[in-house]
């Protein structure tokens, strides 16, 4: 993890504690940088707990029998700019059903975030994993597909409820989505180059459990097990089975053809776009030039988001842009009211943005600044054409104690 300036520490403390601490004067306060994905730790497992509101979860790790029987899930928080992928499209944690097997890339908590995920009890300390802040979470579908790996059906035995799949490397043209600059498989551990099998995850023939609970998708239909044919090129999302501790999985969902996979991806993409419009797209503040008569010029970077959101924002760039104060959990207060409008001064497209960044940096001029506009502070940005929608009350932060509570995860068990 890169060194972060003292000012950033101060800013983060502000976010974390909700209290103001005098920070030594800095020349140009800047937002903390995005984490270096090459230093992230690969951890996979099944989602056993999701706190969708605060973007935190717990996964049961793959294949560690001792941990399976005696250890706790790995509790983690998503970084504010963390990416979640589901069915090959961007998503939120809330979009992933409980029981989905995911592949994650994690880093140790940034400075000031050490207390976000509570320590394990003393008797469980041996299971503690330092890397408890996720940079990227992907389901199997997204993980394998974006890395250019699919599966061939070798055999299906419906009586024994088993299916054997063999990994195949997809040709480069078949790799879906993601702009060139944001192909995590190229920089993340376990990811290979296009046309090669993954180095983390499952990269050999494997036999999985499959039964009537497994959702089989073909085209736009949910079909029977009997529809699976050897030779089909499929993608799957795995889930728990009894042999988990021995590294066994059950097929949770299976997509038999390209049409079903495309459909699933598009459906998830639409869900993500609508989510972003209602909750406004997230970013953080890089820099503020304050005016002592009110307002200032705020430079902010938008986090990774579907290109359609960027396009809509760009279309409305000459209109007023609303910016609501947010939180590391990306929650807002009552963002319909607790926002200020700004005029665009400059729109910059950054070259080769890091993982988590959309590559879009905006310079906005405000007449009034909210206290939550601080370098490194999370904000949510709205295009003028998006309708105001009030969020469900449980998503809103309502007070300083509420913010305090949101700063830390409470372990469910």
């Amino acid at each position, binding site marked *: 993890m890169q060194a972060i300036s003292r000012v950033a520490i101060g800013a983060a403390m502000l976010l974390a504690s909700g209290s*103001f601490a005098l920070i030594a004067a800095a020349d140009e306060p800047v937002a903390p940088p995005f984490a270096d994905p090459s230093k992230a730790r690969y951890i996979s497992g099944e989602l056993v707990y999701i706190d969708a509101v605060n973007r935190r979860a717990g996964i049961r790790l793959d294949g560690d029998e001792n941990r399976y029987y005696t250890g706790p899930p790995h509790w983690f928080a998503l970084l504010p700019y963390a990416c979640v992928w589901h069915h090959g499209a961007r998503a939120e944690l809330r979009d992933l059903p409980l029981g989905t097997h995911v592949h994650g890339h994690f880093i140790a908590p940034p400075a000031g975030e050490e207390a976000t995920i509570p320590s394990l009890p003393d008797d469980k300390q041996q299971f503690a994993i330092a890397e408890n802040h996720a940079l990227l979470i992907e389901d199997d579908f997204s993980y394998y597909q974006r890395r250019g790996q699919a599966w061939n059906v070798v055999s299906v035995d419906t009586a024994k409820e088993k299916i054997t799949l063999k990994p195949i490397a997809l040709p480069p043209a078949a790799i879906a989505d993601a702009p060139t600059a944001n192909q995590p498989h190229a920089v993340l551990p376990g990811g290979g180059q296009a046309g090669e099998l993954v180095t983390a995850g499952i990269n050999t023939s494997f036999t999985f459990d499959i039964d009537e609970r497994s959702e089989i998708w073909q085209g736009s239909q949910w079909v029977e097990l009997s529809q699976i044919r050897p030779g089909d090129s499929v993608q799957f999302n795995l889930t728990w089975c009894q042999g988990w501790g021995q590294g066994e999985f059950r097929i949770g969902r299976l997509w038999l053809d390209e049409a079903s996979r495309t459909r699933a991806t598009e459906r998830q993409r639409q869900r993500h776009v609508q989510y972003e419009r209602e909750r406004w797209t997230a970013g953080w503040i890089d820099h503020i030039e*304050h005016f*002592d008569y009110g307002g200032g010029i705020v430079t902010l970077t938008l986090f990774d988001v579907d290109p359609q959101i960027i396009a809509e924002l760009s279309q409305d760039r000459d209109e007023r842009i609303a910016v609501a104060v947010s939180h590391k959990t990306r929650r807002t207060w009552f963002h319909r009211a607790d926002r200020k409008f700004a005029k665009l001064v400059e729109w910059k497209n950054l070259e080769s943005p890091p993982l988590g960044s959309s590559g879009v940096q905006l310079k906005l001029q405000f007449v009034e600044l909210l*206290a939550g506009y601080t370098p490194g502070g999370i904000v949510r940005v709205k295009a003028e054409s998006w309708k105001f929608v009030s969020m469900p009350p449980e998503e809103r932060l309502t007070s*300083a104690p509420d913010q305090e509570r949101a700063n830390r995860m409470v372990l469910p068990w």
Partner: protein
Amino acid sequence: MKRLLPCLWMIALIGQAVLAVGDTPLVAEGAKVIKLGGDMKFTEGPVWLPDQRKLIFSDIPNSKWMQWTEDGGVSVYRPSEQANGNILDLEGRLISCQHLARNLVRIEQDGEITVLADRFEGQRFNSPNDVAVRSDGTLWFTDPPWGLSEPGELPGHFVFKLDPQTGKIEVVIDNLAMPNGIVFSPDETRLYVADTGGNSRHPDPAFHDLPPGIHCYEVSKDGQLGKKLFTIPEGSDGLKVDVKGNLYTTHGNVKIYDPAGKLLEQIDVPEAPANLCFGGDDYKTLFITARTSLYSVRMVNPGVKTGVKTDAKPADSPSPAEQDEFEVNVLPFFNAHCLRCHDAQQPQGDFRLDTLAHDFGSQQIAERWAEVLFRISSGEMPPVTEPQPQAAELGRVSEWISQRLKEGEAARMARRGPVTLNRLSREEYSKTVYDLLGVHFDPTMPGALNEDPRWHGFDRIGALLTLSPSHVERYLKAADTVLQQAFPLEQPSSTTNRQSAPSPQRWLIYPSLLHGQIRIPTSGLYRIRVQLSGLTSFQGRLPRLSIWNSSLKRPEVGQDVLAAEDAPTVIEFEAYLPQGSFQLINEAPGKLDDGPTPGATPTLLTRVQDYRPNPIGYKLFLEDGRSIFPLLLVDWYEYEGPIVPESDLRKRKDFFPASISGSSASDAQQQESQRREARECLSRFMARAWRRPPTVAEVDRYLDVFDTELQSGENPRSAYLSAMAGVLTSRNFYYVVEGSAAAQRERIDDWELASRLSYFLWSSLPDDELILQASRGELHQPNVLQQQVKRMLADEKFGRFLAAFPQQWLQLHRVGQFPPDPEIYPDYDKWLERSMVLESTHFFSDVFARNASLREFMSSDWTILNARLAMHYGIEFPQQAGFHRVSLAPRDQRGGLLTQAAVLSLTSDGTRHRPVHRGVWVSEAIFGRTPPPPPPNVEPLEPTPSDKPKATIRDQLQAHATHAICASCHQKIDPLGFAFENYDAIGRWRTTEKVTGGLGDDPLVQAGGALPDGRTYDGPDQFKKRLIEDLDRFVESFIEQLATYALRRVMTIDDAPQIRAIANASKNDDYGLRSIIQNSVASPLFQQR
């Protein structure tokens, strides 16, 4: 006033039948009879008012005086009692014969009507019909019974002669049947009287069958009627004469006779004419009242004027010698150099020289000749593109005009009425009330006093300060308010209230936040104390604590605060506060009041370092802990009052009888004693309030009010206050009266001098010392006057002049009139705006205090700034509250008045600077000349198109003003504004001009140019140097402005020599400001009516 007709006067060209009998037509070539208005009942008695360029005439059955102007057409002037014939007396006042009232009246300058006569030897007139005025001031009028509906009291239908000075009235003609129109010949050796002929209404049957006729009588030099010379056997209604002595009659049509009675010409009019008069600037327009309408036709000869005290020969008629000189020396010059552009064909600038009358006795016409003289003498005319005159011929023309102007001066002066009434401005009213009674009356409060109209910034020009029913109503209300405060039933007791923050916490007040509640139950003087710290913004801006009036949304008083967080200070204000609710406010720029954010912003803290911001509240601190905004941290505030200082109580103590209370007198003796004391107090009060001793009759009049109120059941206190209210609502209080009706004076007397002096230097009434000098009749003596002036300049009340005069002269009321757009100028705030104005007034005060030269108004190496303004200018300034003198370096780009932010911004329109308006301002404030207004329908400047390179406003203006009509004015005005292109709309220095739209970078400004006289300049500093080269001219202009302020009127060419004399006298002191003021008072101009 109700208009009978739409705004545009109806013109109906009517086919004119003119029968010329004589050799030379008298109707102007090509002229037609034009209908100016109709739909009246019976029009009569037209008379031309030259100073107002207005015709007054009667609509008899409708009981109205009507008026016509070129711009406004026909409308109602005022109601009458069936006025008929009208004329102007020698003082220019309207004299009228009224049918219904059966009298002869005069309308005074202030609009009041004086009945001059309504009976002869105890018997009422029939119904006076028409009137003529003689040069000795006597009024000759006819008295037929046309307006009489009952038998008359007099034994005949006479022609009377009235002397308004003495009131003596005599019959001059007693043997006419129905005398009607009446007029003197131009040399007053003849009197013409029309008789419409025998009528059975005459009490003497011998008159029943007399034939009609127009009789011509001899008149002696001393005004005695002589024998009849001849009779024209025609009837007539109204009569008039032209300068040649031709007689104009009205009977069926207009007939014109020569002085011998020979018919020369007839003019047909669509309706039968009843009367006529000459008017227009050159008196060649013949106005004809004919039944239901008003007509006009242009004539060759001008008519004889009335209302001018001159020799028998009319003033506008040049003598043969004068006419020769004009034709020999002046007319050829005009033909060669002027008339091509200034005649009927294409009058450039709407100025016609061919019809400019030679009536140098008319102020208006004389001013136009003065303008001609100025233009040709200064080289402005003829334009450089035209052939230029020789020096000798120019000299002859200038000499001729100057001579005529000089000769006409007496006539112009004589035209002015014997009494001048100038209403006090509302600011003067307020100061007068304070000095009189020790009561603060804020005239700007809603519903208090009407705002006064301004003339180029001056709000005390008597001619503009009219009186309307609204004014009177407000004076009544003001008098009540003031007296209730001065003499309350019970003196309100002073209380102290304190509010404290919950210790150890302090209230945090960020910009625009209103805090607390100060309830003022009674208007009065209050003392407010606040303990607080004031933290500067991270850019060094000071916070300002002000007391905010919640209902009027304005600060009443305030102060910059600089006190460290751990070293709070206590500041104290003493201010007059009206009844109402007030709050504390931090008056720094920044409008922090959007939506729920103020409610989410914590405003209590113990220490700044412990402040816990709410993320959805305002951001008040930087990440490093410094305050973003100027902040106030308040511990407590308290307010005490109302306070009534002893000095204020002393002012009023002699005006209210000690023996009078709210209870009635117990017995007759007490009543008598009260009355006696009431008279004494009232007398003192009136003398003080009216600035002169009242007459016994005047005191009696107000004492009657006291008596009447008592009789109607009021208690003595209320009754006496009613009398006092009467004094304060008398015109003698709110008007400055100069002159007397009895005699025309050219100088003011000592009482008037005391008032003029005190209103000039103190904006208020004279104090005891001045009154003493006035009562001794010594104030006008030079050494006494000088001593008094010295004393008054040292008095603290002189501060009122130091605040008021520069505000008016420099038109500082315009600062902020177009509020700068907050999007373009986000850090412009109201305190900055006020600071700008204060810089200029403080600057003026400093120049006065040192008796520094007026040169420093043009350029200086110092100015007076506060922190806010220093920040605006980008000038280094130590962190301190209040205004301080600072030295300026050349890099500061300031110095003098012209580059002060107030002056630079008052001409802006809220978005951009306006160089032409700046030029106009310089022309008015510095050179005392107002350029002509633009013609109508001038296209506005368009914004730069997006596909064209960015252009400055100057570039656009120069492209815009290429049309010849535009260029002629713009080349004189624009250079005066282009000198300041380096200053933006709110007076900040710049080198490029921000242009929205267009291609390329913002263009560089260009601040060079050439003055109308050819001298060039490059930038504001050089421009200032050019002005200093012409310092004499500026000084004279300044003195003119000072005199306008002091004398409450616009200066004329007649004042120019005296103004020059004051300037010359002040040259010895290098035109020191103090010296100029003293010399102005010492000048004869100051004591001139």
